């Protein structure tokens, strides 16, 4: 008789919906993630070439590192036409500023190149001078530029991701674009042998910019590389055992992680981080800082917990 191990959902790890208290934060970011993907699907692809060298890649050169910024401009402008009005609908508080940026881009498409340069180029301190010129707050311009770049990269990420060999890349930043992760994901690997049990959750990091998922060692801090098990804290809320906070007592950074082992429930990795904002609040209450600063994990000073 051939023996098979039952593959049933772990009874002690039920799928629990995000708390109602976080819904007001989760919903608009979920809508933004959906919109970004829809726009990315219609963007022109293959706008730039990547000079992929496995040795350089293994040494830490991201796939986008060799791309020319001007090649991103057409996608950036195309994304702006659809995304900025969409952001205004999702976040009415930004309606005025998205209109200003839309008009600025329509009147001077060269602005796109300057925004991309300001976003990517380390020689440029930040987008403050451009923001003043356009009449936007620097933080808003950064947020909108990031969303636009993220949309353009989402159109290219599937093509580039095929080159991003997990065996060559176990680093704390995205192999495609080099950005920090905003979410960790535990997921098992299918095991073909009927004699083995494979329910170990591999840690995948989700890129905060392009949405690419890449492997990272589970017992290493993705912020500072701390590998001493004693210094890596794990926080799991009672009754929400699929939600985790991986924190490091050495660098005091944290990453929210969701355990997707043994579940096939629908899951949107782009929308999930904002739906876990309550974990961000809990981690910050304990004195930790997010690895990746995002709008949904900035609670404001008077909300300091």
């Amino acid at each position, binding site marked *: 008789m051939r023996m098979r191990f039952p593959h049933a959902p772990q009874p002690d790890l039920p799928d629990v919906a995000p*708390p109602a*208290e*976080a819904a*007001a*934060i989760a919903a*608009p970011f979920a809508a933004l993630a959906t919109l970004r993907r829809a726009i990315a699907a219609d963007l022109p692809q293959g706008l730039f070439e990547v000079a992929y060298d496995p040795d350089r890649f293994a040494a830490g050169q991201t796939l986008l*590192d060799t*791309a020319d*910024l001007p090649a991103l401009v057409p996608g950036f402008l195309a994304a702006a036409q659809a995304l900025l009005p969409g952001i205004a609908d999702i*976040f009415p*508080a*930004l309606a005025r500023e998205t209109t200003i940026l839309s008009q600025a881009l329509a009147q001077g498409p060269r602005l796109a190149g300057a925004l991309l340069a300001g976003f*990517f*180029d*380390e020689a*440029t301190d930040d987008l403050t001078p451009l923001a003043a010129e356009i009449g936007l707050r*620097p*933080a*808003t311009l*950064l*947020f909108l530029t*990031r969303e636009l770049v993220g949309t353009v990269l989402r159109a290219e990420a599937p093509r580039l991701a095929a080159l991003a060999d997990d065996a060559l890349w176990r680093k704390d*930043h995205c192999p495609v*674009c080099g*950005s*920090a992760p905003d979410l960790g994901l535990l997921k*098992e*690997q299918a095991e073909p042998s009927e*004699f*083995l*049990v*494979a*329910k*170990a*959750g591999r840690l995948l990091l989700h890129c905060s*910019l392009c949405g690419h998922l890449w492997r990272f060692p*589970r*017992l290493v801090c993705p912020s500072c590389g701390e590998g001493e*098990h004693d210094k*890596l*804290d*794990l*926080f*799991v*809320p*009672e*009754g929400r055992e699929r939600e985790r*906070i991986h924190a490091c007592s050495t660098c005091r950074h944290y990453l929210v992680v969701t355990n997707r082992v043994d579940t096939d429930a629908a899951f949107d990795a782009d929308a999930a981080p904002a739906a876990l*904002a*309550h974990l961000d*609040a*809990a981690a910050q*209450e304990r004195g930790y*800082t*997010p690895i*990746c*600063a995002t*709008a949904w994990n900035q*609670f404001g000073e008077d909300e300091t*917990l």
Partner: protein
Amino acid sequence: MGISRRGFMKLTGAGLACLGLKDLGLDPRPAAAYATTLRIEGAKEFQSTCPFCSCGCSILMFVKDGKFLSSEGDPDYPVSEGALCPKGAAFHSMHVSHHRILKPKYRAPGSDKWEEKDWDFVLDRIARRVKETRDRDFIEKNEKGQTVNRVESIFHLGTSQMDNEECAVTHQMLRSLGVVHLDHQARI
């Protein structure tokens, strides 16, 4: 112009001037208040090695308040990539099993009852009986006059719960005594 990773990290790292929830017209207070109601206790994950066979698969152990709560294969271990055999998968069950004997037990000759004893008693008893038996039955030469240095009246039964190091040390100890009858529980 190429794309700089440092520039990227600058833009996505903590501490950067970044729009907050309030800037987006969202109220952070319900989520923040909910976070204070969560019962979250710190735990640790430790990497250890499965003791059952020479594969030496890596296992992650979930520990909370000093208690070993669960285990799973280590997905970053290059040989098994997180997969475990049924014995390795039952690592935690073995640890917490109510069948697990935590103290030495002794059944006297002719008795049908097990008694709990301390380690000093059982170790002394085992050593004494092994010495008596070996001194009595030790065979230095066989019928042909060849040197054999063996004891045929002691039998050792191993177990699948022993790790490789235990097996190696046990084997060396028994061979040094001259014990030739060794077997393994899994063959019975």
